[in-house]
Structure formats: C-alpha cells, structure tokens
C-alpha cells in the first residue's frame, strides 16, 4: 500500500489518501477522516458510454438495490439496512462525457457512536459483497418477478419525467443539441425504447459482462483503518480486467446554424433553454477562466443573467447557466412567461455581448470570485464532493489542481480573459416549451 498526498486539500489539513490495486483494473482509494459522523464507500464501475448499454445499466441499478439472493424481497433488504442503523444504500448511474459510471454506495454510522457489540462497518462491508456478487438470479437470468416489476417501475419513471417540466425541458435541449450522437442525446439513465425489449436473461448476461470487464474504482471516506479495509476488500471476488482507455472528453462538430425547437403543452410557465458549445475541458489551461466566465454569465446568484433577466427586468422566475467541461457545453435554463420569449432571448444575448466586450462591473467580478472560492472550500465539508474529487483524480491523474493554486488562479482571472472565453461560446440550440396558446 502506498501513501500519497491528496492534491486538492493537502494545504488544508494534510489529509492522506491510501491507495491499493486490489486486482488489475480494480483500485481502492481510502481517505481516513474523523470529520463526519458517517463512513461511506462507493464502488464505481466505469465503461465507455454506449447507446445500447446505458438503459441496461440503469435497470441493473434498480435491480441491485431492490433485493439480493440473501435478501430476496425489498422488505428483507430494507430490514437489513435498518438493522445496520439505517445504513443508506443505493445504486445509480451517471455520465462523465464519454464514460458511463455505475455506482453502488453505502453510508454507515461511525462505529464510535454505537454500542460495541453493534458495530456496523464489518457487517456493512459483508452486505456490500452480497449485493455485488450474489444478486437475486440463477443461470436462467434475474429473478423474473423482480425483473418485471423493476422494469415496469423504470418505465413509469421515464414516463413521469414529462410531469417535471424543468427536467423535461433540459432533456429536450440535450436531445436537440446532441442530435447527431444518440449516446450523448439520450438521458444518462436510459430510455423507454431500449427498455421495452430487455429480458431477465439479457440483463443477467450484461451483469456478468460488467462485473468482468468494467474498470472498478472503489472510494472510501471516514474513520477507518485503511489496512483493515484493504484486507476485507481483497476478499471480494473481483478478477483482473483492463483499465479503460477511452478519454472522458467529448466534443461534437459545430452545427452550421443553431437548431431550434418549440413545443406546446398545457403549462402556465414556459421554459426557454439554450445550448452553447465551448472548447474548455476539465482542469485544462483555460478551465478556471471559463469557470469564472460561466459564474459571471449565469452560474451564480450574482450573475448577469440573474441580475438582469430576473431582478432588473422581472422577466423570469429563474435564469441560470451551467458548464459541462466533459461534454463541451454551457447550458442556459430559464422559466418565463410565454409572451416574454423574444425579450428574454434578447436579454440573454445582451449579457453574452457584455461579457465579450468586458462591459461588466469589476465589483461584480470580485464578488463572483469570492463566492467561487467559498464554494470550493465549502466542498471540503461534503463527503460527496471529496469522494468525487478522489474519483476524478484517479480518472485524470495529470489534471490535478491544488486548492491553493485554484484559489490563486481564480483571483488572477482578468476581464480580458473573460472576454476571450465568452467569445468561444457558440449558440447551438434553442429549445422552448410553451403554453398551448403561447407563441414565439
């Protein structure tokens, strides 16, 4: 076992990462910490993003968190978690550019709060092993009853998205912008068309493939002895596999003209969402300037979009932007009265022009920088943030950025750099969800 310094927080607390290769392609990172009342372990399975596997992985997450061979009903599994002092357990899927991540997560109360004979760490890890390696299946496939019900529930979940207009509109924009690439265009949690034909046998086959071939990154944070953890996890029957060679970064070619789509539904409030293409990737040389540009544009409550579209002109209830440095986008989302379509579009464009012409208050920029730095320091109080950082460091070991460097780089961003970054933003897609009587 080797010890290395944790890059992003070494100057904060001297926190140590302890790392070990359990098998080829199966890696453990443990970060001992007394800060939290809990210990969390996340097992990440990483594979190249493919249209035909995303929905399978999504349904598999539902199945693995519902029951196992040892806890064959969801109530038996829930009772086990209650027994483990309300352990939080879940399986989920997510996308990082061209990678798809299947994660199983278990959060346990630190044993120091529990009566000695009630310790949950050891029992929790044994439970995790059962979940991963003893699913509720035979050679014929996953348990048919469980399979059919979870398939039905996932289908209902897909259908229910139409009821959440904000989520519906962001997925519709994604569909529009990535129209040429089905794997990027679909939701990271799959789609109804790919779900319908799936069988219990096909999913069982896919489970075995995933367990045998996906790169595995295990991250653990909490009050633990890393040596004991490594020994315990050595007993998990993982086999050697290759580490993925696919870069997480994705960039599509430009559309000649922005793609425009308007949809009418029985809604009171319209949703106007825009996609810009941007060239910056996670922690590259332009990362910090682009991050500050986004925060100034629409990425914070002090941004130009918030100030002008919502506060100054009262045109929108919400207006914000988000940067994705794995998929090369900056997305704007707003909730507006349908009749304000053109006014909001104009005012968004005006804010971008203001950035490109360095036409913004230096005081606002200073506040944006202070807030960004505050957000990064605040991340050190979040288990989720710390564990995601540990995973990113594994996936992109050359793209590290210590907190001190990050802070200095944020402070050093100039208006000229912001103008340069803003000039890189190319409007590529406009999606508008409007009322039945609305027009644009």
């Amino acid at each position, binding site marked *: 076992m080797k010890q290395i310094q944790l890059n992003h927080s070494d100057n904060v607390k001297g926190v140590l990462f302890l790392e070990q290769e359990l098998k080829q392609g199966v890696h453990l990172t443990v970060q001992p910490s007394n800060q939290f*009342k809990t210990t969390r372990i996340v097992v990440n399975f990483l594979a190249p993003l493919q249209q035909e596997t995303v929905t399978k992985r999504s349904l598999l997450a539902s199945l693995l968190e519902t029951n196992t061979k040892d806890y064959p009903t969801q109530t038996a599994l829930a009772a086990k978690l209650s027994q483990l002092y*309300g352990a939080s357990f879940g399986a989920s899927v997510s996308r990082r550019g061209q990678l798809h991540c299947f994660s199983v997560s278990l959060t346990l*109360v630190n044993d120091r709060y529990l009566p000695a004979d009630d310790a949950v760490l050891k029992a929790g890890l044994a439970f995790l092993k059962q979940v991963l390696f003893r699913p509720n299946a035979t050679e014929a496939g996953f348990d048919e009853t469980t399979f059919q019900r979870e398939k039905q529930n996932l289908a209902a979940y897909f259908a229910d998205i139409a009821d959440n207009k904000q989520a519906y509109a962001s997925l519709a924009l994604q569909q529009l912008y990535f129209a040429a690439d089905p794997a990027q265009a679909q939701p990271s949690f799959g789609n109804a068309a790919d779900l319908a034909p799936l069988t219990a046998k096909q999913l069982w086959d896919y489970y075995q493939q995933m367990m045998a071939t996906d790169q595995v990154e295990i991250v653990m944070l909490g009050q633990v002895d890393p040596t004991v953890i490594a020994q315990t996890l050595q007993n998990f029957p993982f086999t050697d596999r290759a580490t993925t060679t696919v870069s997480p970064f994705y960039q599509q070619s430009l559309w000649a003209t922005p793609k425009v789509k308007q949809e009418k539904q*029985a*809604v009171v409030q319209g949703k106007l969402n825009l996609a810009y293409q941007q060239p910056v990737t996670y922690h590259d040389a332009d990362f910090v300037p682009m991050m500050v540009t986004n925060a100034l544009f629409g990425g914070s409550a*002090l941004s130009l979009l918030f100030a002008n579209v919502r506060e100054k002109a009262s045109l929108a209830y919400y207006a914000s932007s988000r940067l994705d440095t794995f998929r090369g986008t900056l997305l704007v989302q707003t909730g507006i009265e349908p009749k304000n379509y053109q006014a909001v579009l104009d005012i968004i464009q005006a804010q971008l022009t203001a950035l490109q012409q360095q036409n913004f208050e230096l005081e606002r920029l200073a506040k944006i920088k202070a807030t960004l730095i*505050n957000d990064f320091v605040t991340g050190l109080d979040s288990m989720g943030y710390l564990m995601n950082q540990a995973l990113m460091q594994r996936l992109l070991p050359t793209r590290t950025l210590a907190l001190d460097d990050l802070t200095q780089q944020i402070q050093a961003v100039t208006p000229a750099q912001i103008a340069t970054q803003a000039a890189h933003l190319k409007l590529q897609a406009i999606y508008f969800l409007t009322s039945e009587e609305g027009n644009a």
Partner: protein
Amino acid sequence: MEQHNYPKLGETLYRTTLANGLQVNLLPKPDYHKTYAVFTTNYGSIDRTFQPIGQSEMVTLPDGIAHFLEHKLFEKKAGDIFEVFGKLGANANAFTSFTRTSYLFSATSRIRENLETLLDFVQDPYFTEASVNKEKGIIGQEIQMYDDDPNWRLFFGLIQNMYAQHPVRIDIAGTVASIAQITVADLYLAYRTFYQPQNMNLFVVGHIDPDATLAWITANQAQKDFPTPTPPQRQLPQEAADGSDIVAHRTIEMAVQRPKVMLGIKGLDKVPTGRAGLVYRTSLNLLFEVLFNDSSAAYLKLYDQGILDDTFGYEVDLERSFHFAGLSVDTQKPDQFVQAIQAVLQQATTGAGLTEARLALVKREMLGKFWQSFNSLEYIANQYAGDDFGTASLFDLPEIMAQIQVTDLQQVAQRFIRLEAMSVFQINPKVAAR
C-alpha cells in the same frame, strides 16, 4: 451562556438569551471549514390576522405578505444585500414556511462581518413603493411556477380539503391577486409586530469559537434600540372540533402521466406544549415508520400488488396551531391505495402491527439516520430553528426515542387516527393532454 453537552452525539451546544430577548444558539464544529447561520422569526404565512403592536384592533393583511416581506428585506437604499454577502464571499438565502421566516448565510471566511450583515439587514427594513411594485412581478412568476407543479398542487389540494378555515389552506406565497394588494404600510405593520428580537432566534453552527461569536452578536445588538417587547397576538378562525367540515374526497385533472393521490389525516386532538409536544411528534413519526416504511408488511404487500412504487412517501407535519399526516403515491390504482392504507390505519388503532420487534428495528434505523443528518450543518440549524418545543430540541431525540414504548404508539394511534379526520385528494391525467 448555558453549555449543553451531548456526549452520545459528540456535540456541545451553547445557548443564551440576550437582554433584548433574542435567543442565541451556537454549535461549534471545529472539523468543518464552513459556518452556517440562520436568523428566524416566529412568523409565517398563517399569521394573517393579528393585533399590530401599539393598536387595539385585529387586522387582516393580504395573503402572502410574510413571504413578500422576506423578499423585500433584501433590498436596501444602497442596493441588494445579496451583493454585500457576495463581496464577503458568502452565499445567502431565505425561506418562508407556514409559521416561520428564516434568513441565512453560509461562508468560509469573514464570519464576523457576515454575521453582522445578517443581523443588520434583517433588523433594518427599507420598503418603498417602487420596489414593492416591482417585486409583484417576480413573486407572480414564482406563484405560477408552483401552479404547474403537480406535487405542490396535490399537497395544497389535500390541505384545503382538511382545513376549511385555517389559513394553512392558503399558499405560502399568496395569490397573484392577493399580493397585488400589498402596500408599504402593510409591510411595516407586519414587520414591527413580528420582527421583535424576543420573537426571534439565531442559530450559528460551524467553524466558530462560541465565546468570541457571542461577544460579536452581543455587541451588535447592544448598539440598537428596540421598543418594549410586546408578544404578538394572533387570531385564527375556528374549525369543527369533530372534523365535520373536512371535505372527504376531491379530484382534479392536470397534465400528469399517472394518477396522483394523497390521503391525509387531520389532527383533531390537542398537541401538548414543550417537551411533551416533541415526544408526541416523535411518537407519530415512529408510528408511521412502523406501519409504512420500506421494511413493513404493508409496503411489501402493496409493492408486490403494483399499488405503490418508490414514489410512495409519507410525512407528519406538526407546527404551531395545526398538525396532520399525509401519505402520497403516483399509481394506476388510486382507489386500492386509499382502501389499503385506510385499512392499515384502522387496524393500528387496535394495536395491529405495533410490535416490540418492529418498534426496535424502526428506532434503530431512525437513530442511525439521526446521526447521519448531523453531517449537515444546514439540517441541524434549520431543524432547530423551525421547532418550538420549549427547551426541548432535536438534540434530545435519542433520549426521547429511547423512552417511547409500544403502548405509547397504541395511545397515539387511538387519539390521532380517526376515520372522520381523513381526506383524499387526487389528480387524474387530463385526457386531452399529450
């Protein structure tokens, strides 16, 4: 300053009441980088009718005024307070509930300046006609957004069934028509009555030194003059004690994929005050967990029958002057859902399903979740500030949970669960919708 040690929880809480009546709670978390502060007044959307300070008659102000006031306090002559917090590198926000209004910030540096900004902006109102009128557009948008949210409509539909008169039936933000009536004078009237220090509390948690922090707060408050404290006098309409004014069932149509249904039980019993009130709420929570959580027999049966899925949820709301429970789900079988849940509830009044083993398991889980929630500074502060159980607080929950027995759950079930207190609200898919 009182010091309360909770060794089982690994926390120490400092508590005091300042000369002007403001209650101050400090919880140091030395391992954390962040500090979170929330400044709360005991004033929310249900406080529409009250006796203004210095007057002898009750007045009723337009619905939504508490929430409107919350928005307007951020605006000052010199500009927007968000900008001041921004300059200090802090994130600020506020929220209004049925009975509370809270203002908060979180920051990793310049804590004293941030704290003073929080106290000063809330204690220095500045309302003008122009800014009040502008706000009406912004809040109008907010109200419309909630109109499109089926879960919000479901929740309020049920509350309106259960409460014929009580202002909990009115949307916290009011209506576009009611907020249009709000005037500068109304805002000052509400402010002077409810933002007196003795009607407020401040909770600070995070990377703080309790003595230094208290000294900053005390010095800040000592500079300000406040009128003689006058406890706010509120008035609520009477509701039928036997539940005869409850609407038993109502259905609306909306653009939803599947029917949504929520079954409610209105609390017709009287909630004790102080610690006993917290014991009562905890017992109700445990009762619902025992009957319906995901390791319960009812959950498994209904899940297997396709009557519920993981959209199923339940909540117990207990606040000043009202309490109720609600169970909701998205399902193709709403009638079966309602029948099955009602049957479980009815049987619980005879003690069915309330066993030692179930209670022990549920307590274990609730205790574990309780520790887990203490990772979140926001959770601790918001929970503490939102409750009103005298000197008892969430820090006492492990002890309270330990004291509750099966017989307590039976008693709570008997007094709370009544057929005549139940109501159902349902949203069906609009046929013409996509």
